[in-house]
């Protein structure tokens, strides 16, 4: 029998139902794979195989008496930003070192109810801020196709776990491309649902008006299956939508080939790797040959996407991350050490004032007067120690753009641009079912190569980020390999609540083989 870990959920389910394998066999196969490869890939940051086995035995009984849920056979890992009761939820940050969630996210509840099994928690960029999974307290996750390359991010662990056959499906979160870009780099399918389609209750917020939870898996059908379970209204999230869900799995089983595909010039120009460009155009041609209609579309405000995103998302982040203050949970700086330092600074200033000339004196006295109160210093020190550099960078950026006097120039203007980007998409979707774009400008690059240039890193999200600004859905599906041996992905964007359409298009690509 083939290695169980290469099965899709659909395949595993057939074998389980036929009685060829048990769920325990399946979990053990993944456990073995993890044992052999996780140290190198670094996808999982916390494992609980024992309770996965217990879960498996419970569900096995249901399989045998025919009452198993629709995800019996899904062996999953969860990005460390989605709360699971009693398990660490650290968001790959030192500030949440040792933090365990006291409740289950809605998506976890729903997956459990349909008998998915959870193996553990997956690596990510700290608080989902990053495009490489290098900004993690656990170190970088490595691309299973070439372990010197990044996985992409921020859901790097989620993509690598599937690509490395350490799970047959995972959950990630996508704020600016964080599911689709690593899916592309790691050669798996990754879906970002419409904003409001999947409840955010239990997703640790990075940028609340952008964040979406979505699935990653080997096949479009598996992604559809997981989406079917996690999607739908939740009264614990006021931004979740009451729009009814389609039957996503049915759509994938019988895809429609006569779809209208929008092709935006802006996404195939400068900055895109030529080989990727050529192979995507090849795929698009094949889809046309199969019956699709290609329609040129314009998305003129795309060029403002990155700037708009980095103003609005960081503004929300600066507020969302304020709760990590070391007061109620998480990392708190050593109080005695902090008080000693403060005292030493005070004494040093007083000493300096004694010896200062008049001009210096005023300045030093001002410094003394403005010395932190112990509480303020405790906040500063706890957060300085707890957050990594990329997170600090975004908190500072967000704090700045919301400051009195700058709000209108930055936040206010960015909100208006966001509306224009939304309108671009609304207009385009009047003519087409989906819009096709590259997922990322390049294939996965060397670990460490972008670390000193955040703006270069931000550019990796250029093709994915506008979907989050517009709140629409998108999927990345593999289209084979680059001559450098690394996977290439293609992205389909769909209008709000048109997950069926992007799944349909992605399935057509899959069928091209």
């Amino acid at each position, binding site marked *: 029998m083939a290695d169980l870990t290469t099965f899709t959920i659909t395949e595993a389910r057939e074998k389980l139902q036929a009685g060829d394998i048990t769920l325990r066999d399946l979990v053990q196969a993944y456990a073995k794979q993890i044992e052999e490869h996780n140290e190198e890939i670094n996808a999982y940051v916390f494992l609980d195989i024992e309770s996965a086995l217990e879960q498996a035995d419970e569900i096995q009984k249901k399989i045998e008496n025919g009452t198993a849920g629709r995800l019996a056979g899904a062996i999953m890992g969860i990005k460390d930003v*989605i*709360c699971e009761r009693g398990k660490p*939820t650290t*968001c790959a940050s030192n500030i*949440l070192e040792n*933090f365990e*969630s*006291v*409740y289950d*996210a809605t998506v976890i509840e729903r997956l459990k109810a349909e008998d998915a099994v959870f193996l553990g928690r997956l690596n990510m960029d700290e608080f989902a801020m990053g495009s490489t999974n290098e900004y993690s307290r656990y170190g970088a996750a490595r691309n299973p196709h070439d372990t010197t390359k990044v996985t992409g991010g921020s859901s790097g662990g989620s993509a690598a776990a599937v690509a490395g056959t350490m799970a047959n499906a995972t959950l990630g979160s996508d704020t600016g491309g964080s599911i689709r870009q690593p899916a592309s780099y790691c050669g798996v399918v990754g879906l970002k649902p419409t904003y409001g389609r999947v409840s*955010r*209750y*239990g*997703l*640790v*917020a990075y*940028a*609340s*008006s952008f964040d979406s939870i979505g699935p990653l898996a080997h096949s479009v059908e598996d992604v559809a299956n997981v989406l079917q379970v996690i999607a739908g209204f939740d*009264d*614990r*999230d*006021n*931004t979740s939508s009451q729009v009814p869900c389609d039957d996503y799995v049915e759509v994938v089983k019988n895809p429609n080939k006569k779809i209208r595909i929008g092709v935006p010039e802006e996404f195939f120009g400068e900055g895109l790797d030529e080989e990727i460009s050529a192979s995507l155009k090849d795929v698009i041609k094949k889809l046309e040959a199969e019956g699709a209609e290609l329609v040129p579309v314009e998305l003129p405000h795309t060029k403002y996407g990155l700037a708009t995103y980095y103003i609005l998302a960081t*503004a*929300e982040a*600066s*507020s969302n*991350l*304020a*709760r*990590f*203050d070391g*007061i*109620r*949970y998480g990392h708190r700086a050593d109080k005695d050490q902090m008080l000693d330092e403060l005292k030493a600074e005070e004494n040093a200033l007083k000493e300096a004032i004694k010896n200062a000339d008049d001009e210096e004196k005023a300045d030093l006295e001002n410094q003394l007067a403005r010395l932190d*109160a112990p*509480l*303020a210093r405790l*906040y500063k020190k706890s957060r300085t120690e707890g957050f990594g550099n990329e997170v600090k960078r975004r908190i500072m950026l967000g*704090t700045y753009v*919301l*400051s*009195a006097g700058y*709000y209108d120039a930055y*936040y206010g203007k960015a909100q208006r641009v966001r509306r224009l980007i939304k309108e671009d998409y609304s207009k385009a979707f009047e003519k087409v079912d989906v819009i096709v774009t590259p997922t990322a400008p390049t294939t996965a690059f060397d670990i460490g190569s972008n670390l000193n240039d955040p703006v270069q890193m931000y550019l990796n999200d250029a093709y994915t980020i506008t979907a989050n600004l517009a709140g629409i859905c998108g999927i990345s599906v593999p289209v084979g390999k680059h001559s450098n041996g690394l996977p290439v992905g293609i992205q389909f964007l769909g209008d709000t609540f048109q997950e069926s359409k992007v799944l349909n298009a992605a399935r057509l690509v899959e069928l091209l083989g």
Partner: protein
Amino acid sequence: MSTIAHERFEAVIGLEVHAQLLTKSKAFAPVPPIYGEAPNTMVTPLCLGHPGTLPVVNENLVRYIIKMGLATNCQIAPKSIFARKNYFYPDLPKGYQISQFETPICHDGFVDIELEEYDKRIGVTRIHMEEDAGKSIHDQDPYNTLVDLNRAGTPLIEIVSEPDLRTPQEAYAYLTKIKQIVQYLEICDGNMEEGSLRCDANVSVRPRGQKEFGTRTELKNMNSFRNVEKAIEYEIYRQIELIEGGGTVVQQTRLWDTSKMQSRPMRSKEEAHDYRYFPEPDLPPIIVSDEMKEEIRAELPELADVRQKRFVSEYGMSEDDAKTLTEDKYLADFFEREIGDYPNPLDISNFIKTHVLRTLNEDKKHISEVNLPTGSVQAIVSLNGKNEISSSNAVKLYDEIYDSFNNFQNVLPDQDFVTGNITFLKGNLDTNPESVSNFVPINTSIPDYSVRINTDLPDNTLVYLPVLEYSSAKGLAEKLNLIQVSDSGFLEELVDEIIANNPDEVERYRGGKKQLMGFFVGQAMKASKGKANPKMVTQMVAKKLEG
């Protein structure tokens, strides 16, 4: 210092009133906003600011604030949004407070206030909703500040007035009016001492005739209506003295110190916030349709002004009495509850004004805090009206009922109380504390308003009170031997005895000193322990001494 009538300066005052709403759960979390519970027990992960939690708007919060907006003649915004107010403090678990900033749900309204010599219309700039923070406790541990997050997330509305107020008395009248409205709407209990109503004041002074406002200061920490008045008065004089002495007023926040009866500036570090307001991304805009607005308008209760007029027209009450009774919604409710089908409502209103208000004053209690069985005041007034008990025994009977239903501190532990439903059971725990299971309920519940019960008890627990065996006022009057005696045989004997024992007074009465009648009746009342029918005694004495 009673009035501010400074010759050269006038004050400009605006009030910001926070009212804690009586919703059944917190603003954004499904947990009751109950006080007095053990610290940090009335909390959800959201109240603790746990990662991944999301606020969910309590619909009643929106309905309550719209009620307030309509009652203060405000415009109701068809679309308004929540905003985050960002700052760090240990009792603010999320690092921001959900509030409203640019688009309050209610705006541009007014209330009319009455002062002794004039009436005045005061503009209401805006009313918005927000959540409360937790409580920092600085004085219970010598080394640490303790934080209780039970209050975190409690719904508040903030009512901001226009700077239309000119004297501390106007401010007092305005605040009283706001309290009356929230009580009539039943959206807030209006208790300033307990913090369910809080008030900050912006105060400036300017030379009379000048249009521009002077530099203002903000007064905080005034925890009673009188303190608001006094703090504003103090601040006005402080600013005038400062200016007259050649100084300038500095814009600052000042804290009122009740014990010293003066204010002090807050340290500059305590203010100077940039709150970085921005739209709350976790909550969609609040949309108020015309239908919803009209539906809420239709549900608005009769407010005090209308009720006062109705009391005059319906019951024939004097303007003053109607005002006294309607000023406080709960008192007006109590009055109307007691009237029932009694033909002479004024007897009831007089009894309430004289005796019920007396006991409330003596005990320093609010009408909503005391228990008087439904119909008991009517029954007392009725017994007296039918001459079955004397006026003095009517008072005695009332006092007896009041005491037995309200003075039971010795039985219920004198600790944390909450409001809840309560069923009265007959029996006396003083004499038989163990036998609660033998007690049977008598049909005396107090559904009209809440009663304080012990919080340690689960919901709907029966609470056993040391009440008298009370089934009706009349039964109790009989049991206490208060029924007026009109039996002429008994009264004859009594009158004869008094005449025999007081020959001097009899002589003087016969000599023309008719005022002595009061003396004879008094003696009869004393000898009969108040039960003798005074009218009959008067007639008998007159007949015997003059006939």
